[in-house]
């Protein structure tokens, strides 16, 4: 079972800081991220994310955060 809460995204994009450069979704090895009509990143296929953090460390705008790897707890259910 996925460690995230139901419905929680594995990756968070700060839409206010994203400048639509395309680096995160071009370099994501699993094509989890895509660009919207303006080129801004969004999480299109959350279930495929392997949490490699490539998107997070490549973002020049600090706009991507991979939700911390953690074990599911009772509260998450």
């Amino acid at each position, binding site marked *: 079972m996925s460690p995230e809460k139901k419905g929680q995204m594995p990756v968070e994009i700060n839409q206010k800081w994203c400048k639509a*450069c395309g*680096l995160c979704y071009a370099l994501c090895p699993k094509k989890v991220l895509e660009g919207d009509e303006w080129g801004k990143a969004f999480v299109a296929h959350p279930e495929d994310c392997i949490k490699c953090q490539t998107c997070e460390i490549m*973002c*020049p*705008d*600090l706009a991507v955060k991979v939700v911390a790897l953690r074990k599911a707890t009772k509260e998450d259910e």
Partner: protein
Amino acid sequence: MAEAWDFLRTDKMPHIWCPGCGHGVMMNALLRTMAKLDVNKDDICVVSGIGCASRLPGYLDFNTLHTTHGRALAFATGIKLANPRLKVIVVSGDGDATAIGGNHLIHAARRNMDITLICMNNNIYGMTNGQYSPMTPTSMLATTAPYGNLERNFDLCKLVEGCGANYVARATAAHPRNISQYIEYALTHKGFQFVEVMTQCPTYYGRRNKLGGPVEMINSLKQNTILNTAAAKLPPEKLEGKIQIGEFVKKEELTYLDRFDAMVDRITGGVKP
């Protein structure tokens, strides 16, 4: 555990850099190192000159100082000598460090001054709309070289090595984990610690030279790069046009402050005033 964002002045974000600017990737890697080392913000002072790269300290939640073009190392030297307990970091662009500031770079490295210098080399003067710099390769286009650059660039790491720095390394924006690793080493060692980071400037260098956007530029940085340990096994003709990354110098020679402290001990006979 501390996170990159804990060391960012979030109220100053989003930053001024263009979409896909390599300086942002470098800042991201620097912030990650700060988080990993879990530094005390008050112990750090980040100094810069002028340029797009030199805007970086404005986004960092440390003691920061934005000085004049090319002179950051001179200010940083003063700061370090006035308060040796501070970890002093200079961030600069290639123009800032090698053109107007080349003199300061030579002498800070020669003194083995206890400063970390991170030079973001995008092969151009980005802030002033794309004039060639000493790091622009021959034949490349710039606003001041509309028919191609006549001058030759040079290997900046070799210069700093020749001047006597304790640590010399190079990474690129396509290798952010290497950037973090080299900065971590630099911040935890004494003497002049130099990390060159090749960054992309899609807006001026990329567009004028038809190198594509951020994604294409990052991909070519990746493809044109070879680790120095792998390069050592190849003949020179195989290395033409390649950027060598890696750690080139790792020494622990006496630093300026070591010499200074020894001199004070010699004069005072070790008696603290």
